[in-house]
C-alpha cells in the first residue's frame, strides 16, 4: 500500500485508543469473553469426547457385545418374598453365534457370579466373571503381573483367578497377590495374575463409571460350583435368578464386518427371545454415535460462541460509531490535509481491528487458563488443540474487519467542509 505505512497507521490507532483507556478496555470485553469461551468450550468438548472415544475403543471396535438384562418387572413386586426369575442369554444363543454366523472370528461367553470376595478381614463385591482364556485377547485387556486364565485351568476346572488392579490393591495392599489365596463365596482360589483396570464405558444400561473391579475365574469352574441358578440378595427380599450367560463377546473378522455381525446378532436375538432380556452393545456404533454427538456438540458450542462474538462485534461497532461522530473534526482536518477516503477507512478499520484483536489476544490467554482450571478442579479432561487459539484469534480479527467496515465507511463518506465545521 502506498501512502502512510501500515505500521504507522497501527501505531496511530493504538495511540487513539489509549486516549480512552477504560472505554477501549470495556469495548474489548465482548470479544474477549467470546474468544475465551470458544477456546474453553472447544477444549472441554474435545476432552470429553476424547475420553468417551477412548472408553469405547477399549471395548474393542471389532466386537459386538451381547448382554443379559433383567427384564422390567411389570407385576407383583414385593408380593413374593422368594421367586425365580429366568432370563438372559442362553447356551443356545452362544452355539448359534459360534456355529452359524459368518465373519465371526471368536466368541467368548461370560458368566457373572454374585459372590463376595474375601482375603482375611478384607471383603469386597467385585464383578466375578467366569470366562475363557481368549477373553483377555478379544477385549484387549493388559496383563499387569503373572498370567491370564489358561486352557489347562479350564480342563482341570482349576480354582485359579485373575484380579483386576483395583481388587488386587484392595485385597493385597502390601504384598504381591501372586500365588496367594482368596475366598470367593465359600471356595478358595489361587491368584495367578492381575490385569490393568480400565474405565467402564457408558452403555445403554449404565452410565460411564470410574473403573471396574473384576475377578476372573475359568468358565468351567464357575459353572461347576455355582450353576446357573443364583441367589441375589436385595433389600428385604431374596431373589433367585436363572441366567445361563451374562455376556457374549463376539469378535468380527474385521471392522468392516461389524455392522453385518451386529445385525445378525440382533436378528437372532429378536427371533429367539420372547422378552427383551438382552442388550446389544456395538462399540463401533457407539463410536460413530459419539462422533455424531461431538459434531452436534460442536455446532451448538459454535453457535453459542458465534453469538457471543456477534454481540462483542456489535459492541465494538457501537463504540466505533460513537468514536467516528466524536472525531468528525479530526476526520475533517485529515481530509483537508490531504487524506483520501481510503486513508480514513484504513485508519478506522485498523483501529477497530486493533480493538478486536486486542480482545482476541486477551481472550486466547483467558481461554487457555480456563481449561487448566477446569482440569484442576473438576477432574475433567480438556484438550486444547493448537488450531483452537488460532481459530479464535482469526475470528476476532475477522469480527474487527466486519464490524469496523461500516463505521469506517461512514467516517470516509463525510464531507470535509461539513466535518471541519463540526463542533
Amino acid at each position, binding site marked *: 500500500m502506498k*501512502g*502512510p505505512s501500515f505500521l504507522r497507521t497501527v501505531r496511530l490507532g493504538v*495511540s487513539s485508543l489509549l486516549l480512552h483507556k477504560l472505554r477501549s478496555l470495556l469495548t474489548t470485553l465482548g470479544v474477549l469473553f467470546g474468544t475465551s469461551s470458544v477456546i474453553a468450550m472447544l477444549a472441554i468438548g474435545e476432552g470429553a469426547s476424547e475420553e468417551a472415544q477412548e472408553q469405547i475403543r477399549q471395548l474393542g471396535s471389532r466386537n459386538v457385545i451381547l448382554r443379559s438384562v433383567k427384564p422390567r418387572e411389570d407385576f407383583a413386586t414385593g408380593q413374593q418374598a422368594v421367586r425365580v426369575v429366568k432370563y438372559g442369554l442362553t447356551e443356545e444363543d452362544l452355539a448359534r453365534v459360534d456355529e452359524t454366523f459368518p465373519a465371526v472370528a471368536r466368541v467368548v461367553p461370560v458368566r457373572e457370579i454374585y459372590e463376595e470376595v474375601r482375603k482375611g478381614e478384607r471383603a469386597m463385591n467385585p464383578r466375578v466373571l467366569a470366562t475363557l482364556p481368549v477373553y483377555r485377547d478379544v477385549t484387549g485387556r493388559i496383563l499387569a503381573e503373572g498370567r491370564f486364565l489358561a486352557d489347562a485351568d479350564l480342563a482341570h476346572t482349576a480354582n485359579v483367578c485373575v484380579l483386576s488392579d483395583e481388587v488386587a490393591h484392595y485385597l493385597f495392599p502390601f504384598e504381591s497377590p501372586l500365588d496367594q489365596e482368596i475366598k470367593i463365596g465359600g471356595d478358595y482360589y489361587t491368584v495367578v495374575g492381575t490385569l490393568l483396570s480400565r474405565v467402564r464405558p457408558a452403555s445403554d444400561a449404565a452410565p460411564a463409571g470410574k473403573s471396574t473391579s473384576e475377578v476372573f475365574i475359568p468358565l468351567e469352574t464357575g459353572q461347576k460350583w455355582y450353576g446357573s441358578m443364583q441367589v441375589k440378595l436385595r433389600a428385604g427380599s431374596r431373589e433367585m435368578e436363572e441366567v445361563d450367560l451374562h455376556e457374549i463377546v463376539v469378535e468380527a473378522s474385521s471392522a468392516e464386518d461389524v455392522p453385518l455381525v451386529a445385525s445378525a446378532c440382533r436378528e437372532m436375538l429378536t427371533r429367539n427371545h420372547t422378552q427383551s432380556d438382552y442388550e446389544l452393545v456395538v462399540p463401533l456404533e457407539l463410536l460413530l454415535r459419539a462422533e455424531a454427538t461431538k459434531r452436534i456438540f460442536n455446532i451448538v458450542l459454535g453457535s453459542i460462541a458465534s453469538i457471543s462474538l456477534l454481540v462483542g462485534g456489535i459492541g465494538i461497532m457501537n463504540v466505533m460509531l460513537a468514536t467516528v461522530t466524536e472525531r468528525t473534526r479530526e476526520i475533517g*482536518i*485529515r481530509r*483537508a*490535509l*490531504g*487524506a483520501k477516503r481510503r486513508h480514513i477507512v484504513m485508519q478506522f478499520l485498523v483501529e477497530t481491528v486493533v480493538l478486536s484483536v486486542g480482545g482476541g489476544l486477551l481472550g486466547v490467554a483467558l481461554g487457555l487458563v480456563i481449561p487448566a482450571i477446569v482440569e484442576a478442579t473438576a477432574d475433567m479432561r480438556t484438550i486444547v488443540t493448537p488450531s483452537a487459539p488460532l481459530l479464535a484469534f482469526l475470528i476476532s480479527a475477522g469480527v474487527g474487519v466486519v464490524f469496523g467496515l461500516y463505521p469506517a465507511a461512514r467516517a470516509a463518506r463525510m464531507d470535509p467542509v461539513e466535518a471541519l465545521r463540526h463542533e
Partner: protein
Amino acid sequence: MRSTEARALPPVAELEHVTRTYRMGANEVRALDGLSFVFGRGEYWAVMGSSGSGKSTLLNVLGCLDRPSAGRYRIDGADVSALTDDELSEIRSAKLGFVFQSYNLIPQLDVLENILVPLFYQDEPPAGAEQRARALAERVGLGDRLAHRPMELSGGQQQRVAIARALVNEPSLILADEATGNLDSHTALEILTLLDELHAEGKTIIVVTHEPDVGARAQHVLRLKDGRIESVVRDQNSAPVVDPLPDETGVQRR
C-alpha cells in the same frame, strides 16, 4: 513584488466565472455568483466581507474542499474544477497549506507528529521529512516542545504548530481562515507577524477574515458581497510595515 517570477509561472489560483450554489430546502442559495479573479504568485491577500458574503465558500473552493457548481478553478495553471475526490485530496496534500481559526491540531498526536500529518498522506513521503518538520517547529519557535500534545500548549503556540504544519509540504498556496479569531490581540499580532514573514519569503497567502485589523496587514484586499466582488484594493500599504514588537526580530524585507 516579484514581477519576473510572477510572469514566468502561471498564477497560483485562477477563478473563472465560479459559481457555487446550495440547496436550502426549497430555495437555491448562490454563495458564489460567477466570480472571476486571479491570485498572483507571492501575493498576500485578505478576503473580507460580512457573514454570508461567500468568503467561506470561496475559501473552500480555493482549498479544493469544495467544487464549484459552474466555472473553472485552476491551481498553478491546472484545472481542478472537475477532479475526483481522490485527485482533490492529492492536490490538497501537494499544493495547499491550511491554517484554521480553531487551530485544528489532532489531539492524540504530539507537535512533531502534527506537523508531519500532511506528508503522512502523500504517496511518496519526501526524504528528510522529519528534519524538515523539526526545522519548521524551530522556525515558529517551538523547537523545545516537539513531544508536547496540543492540550499542553497555549492557543498561540497551537496556531504556530498549525502554521508549521501548513508549511511542511511546501505548498503553492497558504489559506488562513480567521487564523487569529480565537487569540488575544498580543498573540494575534505574533501570528500576523509570522504571516508577514512568510509573505516576505515569497509565499502566496490568502487570509479570510472579517477583522479590519487583520485585513489591514495584508498586501491586497478583496471584498465580497453576496457572492460577488464588491471591491479590490491593491498595495494598500505602500510603505512597509515594521512591527514594533520587542521580542520579534523579523523585519519586513520589502
